[in-house]
């Protein structure tokens, strides 16, 4: 266990600053906060995949007892939102494009009155054809969901390097595969909730759980037609996020209601809490993707040419799909050097639930295809998969498929691969085994247990911070109070504590930068009224950006202190080196500021009769640059592994015609405590990043990324069967292992 220590340098596992209140129940999440006189809001959803609204009548609902007002599209000044494009309506007025489209908002004295009034809203729909398969939706002649997305293609990313035809011609082996990765639900503990009111300065204020206060503020202000400073967003405690809170859920509708009521002379707060079902139906999912890959290599294992097609289901609106697609395009050829590459990645609009940010942001999908290809290639060549990686991983100065080298300090891919393999005793465990029926091991119980054990390897890389030319940066402010000596320091920073331990790390870094004990640091966080724009708690960027912002701010504040300003107050904005978007024709780009590197070995046990896969042990080597708080890093590794285990095996998000068949935790199965591996070995490497604060890289997404392909490799090792589609539910595994539907023979 980590040593308990209250004061000390970076690299110590300080207890989380938010832990005492969270474990004693004192912490208040958005749904826990109440204000006197508050009203309740409930949302009417379309529950139609694609339809035209022919008639919408709220008169009966508005006349119901307790109902204060029903809002519809007509009440939204600028009826659009979206992180990348303002292409989604706040409330649908004419057409609904997915089942969770919001049609009306009921505000009432009680939650029950609001809920009951929903049933009295009369909506007449005319169903339109629902496009739920992006591969069909992008065909010429398919109906078009938005006129401005031709052939329903939201974005096409081409990457061209070298000459793939020549590469294939010179290849000794070709490996081809078609892969599918499913949607995934974030399943955070706290369903969406919030409370809106006008603050003492008359600002439309929303207390909500999000990932990026200032983007929420901007989205609200845009829809309400207000300047940003008339809107305030505050994050109380946030019950998990994983990318699922990056887009808008209740932010705009709460602000709209309180602001419109105020104009009507009703000066009361408005609160809403989503049920679990509303949460699952109401926010975006991880993109489902279909990936086709053709790889060529020399007999000695040298990779020559890759041709990959990625089709991502974006759902009806852009959300963050173009950026997720970019990441999938960069990662679908793996962390390897390619003389020749051709990638065509498409994000396609459909009438499924919108897709958006989720831990890994396109990299899990890209790497699932890449690492399956790599493991199949190793098999084909009769080569050790680790040795094959070491021959091909990107090293310093090598040009990626976007024709630029990986940035910043050590490219620790060989190191994570070697450290992980060594720790797992890879050489000893990588022998192929197929369990013959007659030598099934007899378990300690008397039941026949035809269990087969297998080992798998995968590695990955992913960017830290926003990519493709986005104007990245993060602001912080520091106040130094005292007389001759600094007695206390106040750090004001908007970065969100989403459960990852961000605030603890921010305070540790402030203590380090100011040369003060942690006890003298006060944190004022996550309020647009007190802090500048930090950007999002996503893209594994919080530590990296907060650290750089805090270092700059601390230096400026200490200078003012030496200049005898009391209090010494400094505001600073860190801006990293600029990145570039893909060249439209070749995809050439310097897409990212920094990367994280990770490798994993897994041991699985497959019950060949039931199809049940048990993840027994995981070794995860993650280069974090500098471990600011090792215990929190272990927490991220263990959490990432378990979340990826859900993605790979238990979580089966099933839709039909755009409708969700698994909107409950009783049929959407996230891993339980008994599904967690017996052992997760966290191997933390510290090769400094040249741009990172104290050398730190981000790491929160990395442990998620290689797990699924490591598991499928291990299942192949155990059974001799490749699984190219996730998740590996027992039923699906059984069907493949038995290659038939069972009918008991008589």
């Amino acid at each position, binding site marked *: 266990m980590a040593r308990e220590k209250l004061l000390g340098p970076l690299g110590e596992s300080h207890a989380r600053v938010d832990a005492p209140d969270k474990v004693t129940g004192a912490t208040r999440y958005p749904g826990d906060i109440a204000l006197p006189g508050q009203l309740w809001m409930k949302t009417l959803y379309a529950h139609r995949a694609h339809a035209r609204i022919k008639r919408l009548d709220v008169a009966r609902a508005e006349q119901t007892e307790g109902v204060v007002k029903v809002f519809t599209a007509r009440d939204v000044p600028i009826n659009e939102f979206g992180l990348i494009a303002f292409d989604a309506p706040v409330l649908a007025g004419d057409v609904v494009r997915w089942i969770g489209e919001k049609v009306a908002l009921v505000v009432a004295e009680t939650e029950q009155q609001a809920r009951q009034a929903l049933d009295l809203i009369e909506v007449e729909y005319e169903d339109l054809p629902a496009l739920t398969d992006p591969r069909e939706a992008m065909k010429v002649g398919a109906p078009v969901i938005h006129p401005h997305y031709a052939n329903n293609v939201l974005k096409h990313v081409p990457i061209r390097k070298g000459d793939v035809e020549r590469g294939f011609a010179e290849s000794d082996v070709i490996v081809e595969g078609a892969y599918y990765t499913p949607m995934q639900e974030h399943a955070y503990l706290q369903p969406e909730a919030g409370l809106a009111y006008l603050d003492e300065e008359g600002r439309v204020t929303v207390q909500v759980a999000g990932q990026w206060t200032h983007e929420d503020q901007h989205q609200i202000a845009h829809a309400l037609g207000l300047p940003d400073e008339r809107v305030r967003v505050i994050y109380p405690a946030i019950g998990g996020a994983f990318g699922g809170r990056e887009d808008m859920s209740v932010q705009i509708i709460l602000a709209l209601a309180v602001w419109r009521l105020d104009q009507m002379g009703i000066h009361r707060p408005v609160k809403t809490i989503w049920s679990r079902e509303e949460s699952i139906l109401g926010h975006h999912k991880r993109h489902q993707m279909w990936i086709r890959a053709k790889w060529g290599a020399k007999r000695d294992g040298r990779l020559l040419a890759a041709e990959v097609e990625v089709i991502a289901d974006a759902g009806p609106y852009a959300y963050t799909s173009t950026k997720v697609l970019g990441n999938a395009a960069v990662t679908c050829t793996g962390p390897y050097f390619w003389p020749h590459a051709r990638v065509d990645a498409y994000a396609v609009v459909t009438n499924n639930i919108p897709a958006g940010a989720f831990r890994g942001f396109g990299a899990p999908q890209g790497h699932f295809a890449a690492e399956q290809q790599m493991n199949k290639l190793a098999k084909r060549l009769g080569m050790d998969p680790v040795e094959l990686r070491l021959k091909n991983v990107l090293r310093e100065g090598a040009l990626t498929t976007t024709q630029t080298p990986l940035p910043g300090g050590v490219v620790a891919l060989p190191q994570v691969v070697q450290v992980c393999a060594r720790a797992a005793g890879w050489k000893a465990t990588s022998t192929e085994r197929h369990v013959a029926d007659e030598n099934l091991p007899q378990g300690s*119980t*008397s*039941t*026949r247990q035809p269990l087969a054990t297998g080992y798998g390897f995968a590695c990955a890389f992913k960017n830290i911070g926003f990519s493709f030319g986005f104007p990245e940066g993060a602001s912080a402010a520091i106040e130094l109070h005292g007389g001759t000596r600094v007695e206390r320091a106040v750090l004001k920073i908007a970065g969100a504590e989403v459960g990852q331990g961000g605030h603890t790390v921010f305070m540790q870094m402030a203590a380090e930068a100011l040369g003060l004990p942690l006890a003298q640091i006060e944190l004022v966080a996550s309020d647009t009224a007190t802090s500048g724009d930090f950007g999002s708690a996503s893209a594994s960027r919080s530590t990296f950006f907060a650290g750089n912002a805090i270092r700059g701010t601390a230096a400026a504040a200490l200078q003012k202190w030496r200049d005898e300003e009391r209090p010494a107050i400094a505001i600073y904005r860190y801006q990293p080196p600029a990145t570039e978007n893909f060249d439209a024709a070749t995809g050439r780009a310097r897409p990212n500021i920094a990367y994280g590197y990770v490798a994993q070995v897994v041991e699985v046990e497959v019950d060949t*009769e*039931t199809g*049940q896969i048990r993840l027994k042990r995981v070794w995860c080597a993650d280069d974090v640059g500098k471990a600011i708080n090792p215990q929190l890093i272990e927490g991220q590794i263990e959490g990432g592994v378990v979340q990826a285990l859900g993605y790979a095996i*238990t979580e*089966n998000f*099933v839709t039909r015609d755009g409708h969700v*068949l*698994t909107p409950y935790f*009783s*049929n959407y*199965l996230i*891993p*339980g*405590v*008994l*599904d967690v591996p017996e052992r997760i070995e966290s191997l933390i490497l510290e090769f400094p990043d040249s741009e990172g604060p104290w050398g730190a890289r981000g790491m929160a997404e990395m442990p998620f990324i290689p797990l699924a392909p490591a598991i499928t490799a291990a299942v192949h090792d155990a059974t001799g069967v490749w699984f190219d589609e996730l998740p590996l*539910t*027992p*039923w699906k595994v*059984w*069907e493949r292992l*038995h290659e038939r*539907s*069972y*009918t*008991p*023979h*008589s």
Partner: protein
Amino acid sequence: MHKFAYYAPQTVKEAARILSKNGPNSKLLAGGTDLLVQIKEHVKGPAPDYVVSVKNIRELHDVKFSARAGLTIGAGATISETLATKGVQEHFPAIADGTAIIGSLQIQNIATIGGNLCNAAPSADSAPPLIAYGATALIAGPRATRTVALEDFFTGPGKTVLKPGELLVSIHVPTPPARSGCQYVRHTPRAQMDIAMVGVASFITLDRKGRVADARIVLGAVAPTPIRARQAEDSLRGQEPTADALRAAGDIAAREESPIGDVRGSAGYRRYMTSVLVQRTAQAALKQAMR
């Protein structure tokens, strides 16, 4: 939440009277782990206007065991209380198999076996092992009591033989004869906190020569109620319990059921799992019987 009148009677008679007076609009509350969720989430029909708690009825909370009299589980006894009763784990290991996997430990500390049975989910994990052990149910009405075999207790999903005004008082399980064994195993995609796709309890008694003297195989979650796989049982009686005989019994059992297919698995997959689990549980039961 729906408003209801709450009663906490002291005797079974009084409870039966309240239930019969208020008719189908009333519900019995034991642990509440099913009922309260149903009320809050508006599932399984309209919420009751009258809720009758068994909390103060002392006789419903008793769990008693003696080798001679067998095991009696009061309908209001929690799973944890039942499992902590001396003799239960030793003589009825399959009851532990079936109840220690219901929900979580927190659920087991408040939920009752009686409630699990009366809720009558086809997948109820306590039912197959109890039926396999030959349990009977004692039922009280406003005027009289009656006893039914537990295998006849269920009539459909959510439905039992309980008539309006009747309540389950206790479950009686005879002590298994010598050379017996019983195991319950369920198949779930997740290791715990999940609903059985298939659940199988196999009870086997051997004769002195090591042949099967009696077999009871009970299947859960593959029919509207838990069912006995009688043909599979018949195929084993009088036989040497060889691996081939068990495999054949598994195949026969798989034909005796009528599973559904849904997002978690096809009917064919459930049949195969039945066959596998019959073999595995019967193997385990044999091992116990030969101890």
